[in-house]
């Protein structure tokens, strides 16, 4: 069953939903990356919650006009308009008052959502326009998706995708260095608007599939996941698109294969699984790798300090240092240096003596900046320079 779902063999509707979710995931990952890089990820939360009053109003208008209140195009249009209004409120509050953006987001988000819930309640009592299932926009529902709905989502998601590809350079510039972007003639305010339009498009398109409460996850989690793996914007973008698309695809397929499982939450959980793996296992930025590097650096420091202490005949008090020295065969259980330990200690001391010469000589200023107590001078200097420094060493006894 699951294999059938993943291979898109569960019927036309399921295929449409799966494709729609995949493209939505890609668009959300790409659009969300700029939001995340600009440090304004939470804005998406305000946008998504601000869609609700628009949905309610659109339903009422369509019902009053005698049409089907649940026409997806009409609902999405209403959602887009009220989300845009919400965005304008946030941006007005942030620029014209002393409120910070997070406070403005919190205010707008809750007020708009409150209005939306009131409207939905009113609609239920209205008894017109067939409101059953309207609350599905909260958590998404794909079961009753029409072919035309799915196609609409697919096209909108594709347009979002195209917009991201076209605007990726100026959006990157505005996210990294808005001052420079303005100075070189980019209209940062307009770029921010374009970014918001992207987010808005993703949110509105995502309403039907993942719902307005969870669509935020699709905008934020894939970029955050991608950031663990790369130090390049273009790669982060591509990976975020990949993570988002994969989440949409696998999540939609899973929910199609397992009856009664909601699509939106499953997509988000798949995205979270990718995030978790990245958080733990990513090289360099991952938690495990960072912890490992911290440990190995700590060991290096302790060994070095231990060797220098041995060389200078100072007692060693730290247990970790003693244990590391013992394990490396450099010191005995009593903390006294072995033969190998004595040799290593002498080498460490020699390195320090060499560094003292490097640090004092202005000709080695570039190399001197690399001194950190661990780096060996021969790793920084050429053999010729090393020879010159060794010639300048005071002749120590015993070497």
């Amino acid at each position: 069953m699951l294999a059938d779902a993943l291979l898109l063999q569960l019927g036309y509707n399921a295929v449409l939903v799966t494709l729609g979710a995949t493209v939505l995931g890609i668009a959300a990952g790409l659009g969300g990356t700029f939001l995340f890089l600009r440090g304004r990820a939470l804005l998406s939360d305000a946008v998504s919650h601000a869609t609700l009053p628009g949905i309610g109003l659109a339903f009422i208008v369509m019902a009053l006009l005698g049409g089907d209140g649940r026409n997806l195009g009409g609902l999405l249009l209403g959602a887009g308009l009220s989300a845009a209004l919400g965005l304008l409120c946030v941006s007005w509050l942030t620029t014209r008052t002393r409120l910070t953006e997070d406070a403005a987001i919190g205010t707008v988000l809750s007020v708009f959502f409150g209005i939306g819930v009131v409207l939905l309640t009113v609609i239920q009592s209205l008894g017109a326009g067939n409101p059953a299932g309207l609350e599905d926009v909260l958590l998404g529902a794909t079961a009753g998706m029409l072919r035309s709905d799915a196609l609409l989502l697919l096209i909108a998601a594709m347009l979002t995708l195209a917009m991201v590809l076209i605007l990726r350079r100026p959006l990157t510039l505005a996210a990294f260095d808005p001052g420079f972007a303005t100075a070189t003639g980019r209209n940062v305010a307009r770029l921010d608007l374009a970014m918001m339009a992207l987010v808005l498009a993703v949110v509105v398109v995502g309403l039907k599939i993942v719902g307005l409460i969870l669509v935020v996850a699709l905008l934020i989690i894939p970029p955050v996941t991608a950031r663990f793996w790369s130090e390049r914007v273009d790669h982060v973008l591509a990976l975020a698109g990949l993570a988002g698309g994969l989440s949409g695809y696998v999540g939609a397929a899973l929910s199609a294969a397992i009856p009664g499982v909601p699509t939106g939450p499953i997509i988000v959980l798949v995205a979270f699984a990718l995030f978790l793996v990245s958080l733990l296992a990513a090289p360099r930025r991952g938690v495990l790798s960072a912890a490992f590097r911290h440990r190995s650096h700590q060991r290096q420091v302790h060994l070095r300090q231990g060797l220098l202490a041995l060389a200078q005949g100072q007692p060693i008090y730290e247990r970790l240092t003693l244990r590391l020295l013992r394990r490396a065969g450099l010191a005995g259980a009593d903390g006294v240096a072995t033969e190998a330990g004595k040799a290593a200690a002498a080498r460490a001391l020699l390195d320090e003596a060499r560094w003292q010469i490097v640090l004092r000589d202005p000709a080695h200023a570039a190399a001197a900046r690399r001194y950190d107590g661990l780096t060996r001078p021969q790793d920084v200097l050429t053999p010729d320079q090393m020879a010159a420094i060794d010639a300048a060493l005071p002749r120590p006894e015993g070497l």
Partner: protein
Amino acid sequence: MSLRLATAQDAPLTAPLDVRGLTVSYGEKPAVFSVDLSLGAGAMTAIVGPNGAGKSTLLKAALGVITPLAGTVSAFGLPVDAARDRIAYVPQRASVDWDFPVRVIDVVMMGLYGQLGLLGRIRGTHRARAQDALARVGMTDFAQRQIGQLSGGQQQRVFLARALAQGADLFLLDEPFAGVDAATETAIVGVLHALRDAGKTVAVVHHDLSTVEAYFDDVFLLNTQAIAAGPVATTFTDNNLAAAYGGRLAPRQAALPGALA
């Protein structure tokens, strides 16, 4: 303000940067008040003044990075917007997030975005220009590094390389020597002097009074209002400094021998 506009018309209309009656306020307190500034073509100008004098604000407002309350700005006789491809701006290092996922070479490439347009493909000539800009600031070996791994001085050099890649005629730098090592300062001054000698105009928001005479041709003294402007030799006087710094004037260190200017 219009009065000042009418009286200050002595500068040539084609000055690389010409600022008239510029006022910028944060809230209701002017940070820069009715400032006239005209940069000499092919000269290197220091913009000097005490902390909070509005030096960076002046630069940002002239470029439209922040919106002035009043005043006009032109570059090369054109409105700034029409001359942006000839202006390179080096913001303060601290103004960006250095954990941003870009490599050194990507940052330098940003200087070429204006010419690349939205979808223009990055060609070999673009890459060569970026590499050349990196070479001029001595950062060739760091091209593939993530910017977060750089020291402060190296970050500043990368910012300068991005400006060089633009191929501009006017260079505006905001505190390029703040918190950088001596080697970087020397390297940056060398690049700026080479630009000046090639006929480019350079203006630098500068902190260190002891190096003004060694580095710069002209000086612009600012303390919210313009105090004095002109060649360093005649303008950088104790009298003008006292007017700019008031009681806050740090004892002026002896000028370096053998001024480069």
